[in-house]
């Protein structure tokens, strides 16, 4: 049997001490969970590109208007349906409105509503799932059967009904989309909660007199955060898509506060005329944002998956 020889490392020697080699002491440059996750994330080239796309759109939509001052509201009858050119890089629409400026403005609305409703849906779903999973019993049964019932309602039908009855403001759309998008996260969070709540540290906390809210918020939810973040990124994508669908069928925000879906719907009525610049920019933007969010979600899932992390 080989003997373990303990030697003091010399100056500049990179050989780790035995404790470290045995995993009994932290490494010299201990990597945080975030750092490990980031490394995994960065290994996913598609996700990096997707993140870049997302950043690009955020910058373009929210800071672009500070640099580019296209006409986004005034009807210019002498500039209608102009193709892309020096004065209008993405052309103009049927009202002579600059498409690039409109794309930025509409992008603000799409991203604001998409992100806000995605986050809100995640918060609702996370809390609901954690409570159901933690409390268990008949409360869990009722809560989850309610979710089953809600899931049986076609999403598009619910969206149309709520959007048409509650009004067509930005706040309403955030609420409507969020309220129809939190069900799947609830199931995932509940599943996580069921496994976490039987762990020793949760039992210990309970034995020491920890109350349920404290256990849920201090010990359970932090341990489901990976699932939540992954789901949030996907939820944002779904929210952007849902808003686009509503706008496409004419139930979106009222002009001139179009989102990308509204722009796409407007442009698609000019398909026969080949006014491609009214269709492709919003269409491509919607697709890119949705794909990006999905790639980012995939990468985040990998990042939070401990089995894939290097220690």
């Amino acid at each position, binding site marked *: 049997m080989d003997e373990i020889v303990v030697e003091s490392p010399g100056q500049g020697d990179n050989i780790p001490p035995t404790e470290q080699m045995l995993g009994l002491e932290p490494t010299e440059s201990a990597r945080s969970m975030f750092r490990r996750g980031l490394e995994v994330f960065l290994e996913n080239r598609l996700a990096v590109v997707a993140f870049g796309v997302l950043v690009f759109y955020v910058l373009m939509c929210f800071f672009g208007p500070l640099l580019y001052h296209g006409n986004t509201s*005034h*009807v*210019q*009858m*002498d*500039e*209608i349906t102009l193709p892309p050119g020096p004065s209008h890089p993405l052309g103009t629409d*049927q*009202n*002579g409105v600059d498409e690039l400026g409109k794309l930025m403005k509409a992008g603000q609305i799409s991203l604001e509503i998409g992100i806000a409703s995605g986050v809100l849906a995640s918060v609702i779903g996370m809390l609901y799932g954690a409570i159901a999973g933690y409390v268990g019993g008949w409360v869990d049964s009722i809560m989850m059967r309610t979710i089953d019932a809600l899931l049986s309602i076609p999403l598009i039908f619910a969206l149309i009904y709520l959007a048409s009855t509650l009004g067509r403001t930005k706040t309403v759309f955030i609420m409507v989309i969020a309220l129809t998008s939190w069900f799947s996260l609830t199931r995932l969070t509940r599943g996580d909660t069921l496994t976490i709540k039987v762990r020793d540290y949760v039992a210990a906390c309970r034995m020491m007199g920890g109350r349920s809210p404290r256990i849920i918020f201090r010990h359970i939810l932090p341990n489901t955060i990976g699932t939540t973040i992954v789901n949030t990124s996907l939820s944002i994508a779904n929210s952007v898509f849902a808003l686009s669908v509503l706008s496409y069928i004419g139930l979106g925000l009222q002009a001139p506060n179009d989102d990308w879906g509204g722009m796409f719907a407007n442009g698609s*009525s*000019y398909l*026969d*005329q080949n006014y491609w610049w009214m269709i492709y920019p919003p269409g491509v933007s919607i697709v890119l944002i949705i794909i990006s969010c999905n790639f980012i979600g995939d990468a985040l899932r990998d990042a939070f998956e401990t089995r894939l992390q290097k220690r």
Partner: protein
Amino acid sequence: MAVRNTRKIVAMAGVLAVLASAAACGSSKKSGGNNNATNPVSTASSSSAPAKQGGTANVAEWPPGSSPTAIWPFMTSDQLSTQNAGQFQYYFYRPLYFVGLNDKLAVNYDMGPADQPTWSSDGLTITIPMKSTWGWSNGEKVTGQDVQFWLNMLKSEEGKPGQAGASGYYSPPNQAAGVNYLPDNIKSTTATDSSISITFDQKYNQEYIVGNALSTVTPMPLAWDVTDAKGTKGKCSTDTLTSPTLQADCDAVFKYLNTAGKDVKSFATNPLWQISDGPWSLKDFNATSGGFSITPNTKFTGEHKPYLDQVNFVPFQSQDAEWTALKAGSTGANALQIGVFPNADTPPYNGSDLQAGNPLASAGYNVEKGSLLDSIDYYQVNDGSKAHGNLFKQSYFTKALQDEMDQQSAINGPYKGWGYPTTGIVPGYPDGNPLSPAAKAASAKYDPAEAKTLMQQHGWDVSTTPATCTSPGTGANQCGAGIKAGDKAEFTLEYPSAHPAMDTMLAAYKQAAAGAGIAVNTVTKTQNTLSGELVGCSPSAPAGCNWDAILYGGWVFSLLPTTDSLLTTGAGSNIFGFSDPTFDSKVAGTIKSSDPQAWYDYESYAAGISLPLIFMMDQIWPWAVASNFHDSGQDAFQGFEPEFWYYTK
């Protein structure tokens, strides 16, 4: 009052519409097209290649979504439309005098059963000779008695204006203006087989009588003088205008013919409607779709016999559907020979080369353009609106509304050059209309700065939109009668849905009006919905007090562009609550006198008051016509004359 001598442009796909046309042309010094266009009032002509006899043509009903609803040429007010008259009934039953063929403001004596009339030396009596060669398909001649039959029927409408189902031709006398209209202005008639003489109660403008009044008269065969399906003979055709039994006699016939005349299922089968004097016979009529086919009337004895063996009028519910059919090509069994371009697919107007950019060239179609006759387009405001009627009665306010309407940019932009501006109450096109210097000076123009100034000068705070009245009262610098302090300069403008070019034009208008503090709340509704809302405000029709402004269509005049049936007090189509005794007397002047000064006085006065019409551009309709087909287009009043159509060799 007189027979309604104008024809309403009915709800149409393009609403702003007007006409489409025939060959020939007028000419004008004005330019109404876009920058690279030549004068829009120029020729629209189809192939001049030799004609080929025979063949079947498929023609899209126009405008899309419309189809005939009445075949009896004595229509009620809700039936009176070009779709029923010039695009249907006139094929079979010819009006006494036909006006407007080939884009010219003239009476076309060769198109109807009567020759040119003569007037007595005192100018009170007109004698209308009936053509000896013109007959009904049942073998009878078209006689003076047939004309008398129609006049009697109109006379029996005397007590019914405003009632549901009342004739669309009758208007009550205007006592304030001292003028009566057909048939109340008739003192006596003498009808024979070969002529009818009509003596009027006073001297009238003779052009008006022939071109506006008598052009609405359609002789009716004596075989139609029946009171039931069994053929029980009526007495309406044999009465005189003063017969004490005329009302009862004609009511009985009216009741039966009106019912039969709107039974679309029996249009092509009812023996009554088989008796015709026009160049065509109705072969079949699809009561569900509204499509129909016509074949030559083999017993037609008039001029201009058809070339084609059959014409099928194909219904389309939308411009898109028609466009799809056109793109399929001009050859093939069901291919269209004539259709209309949707606005979005219309090539930019190029007066020197209409075919430039023709998207249907490869499909075998040429681009042809519509005519421009005697028409005005507008959106109408409701002086009787309980919410904003007082605003519309202010001449400075309607002037401001007019100042914000940029007609030329609308023509150049969304309408791609296919249009011409409406300059005032008398159409600027064609040449020949008596435009006074005052009318020319007051031509509608785009002047947003003036609009804002007008509002400010009349006591409105325009720092916000809607502006607020800060100086109520009736003084020269105050808001005007009925407008209180704090009232807002706002109203709702309803217009037809599904018209992208119109959306753009009105979005620009709304934006411009906001600059003068006027908030125009635009609302789109279907054409049929708007049609239902278009009633005048009265105690018996309170719904007519609810609408503010509606863009529905325009007005196509007959030979003389007077507004006797549109704007005079109590006129059948005056649904605006507009009433101005002085204006009425000026209109009466145009009817009673051919003196140009009467027209000038009328125009000058109209230019200075608050008319309930905000003028808008007239659209010229771009037609797609198969390249191997000769299309005479439409006449000045949107009617078709298929007897001039043929395939080319």
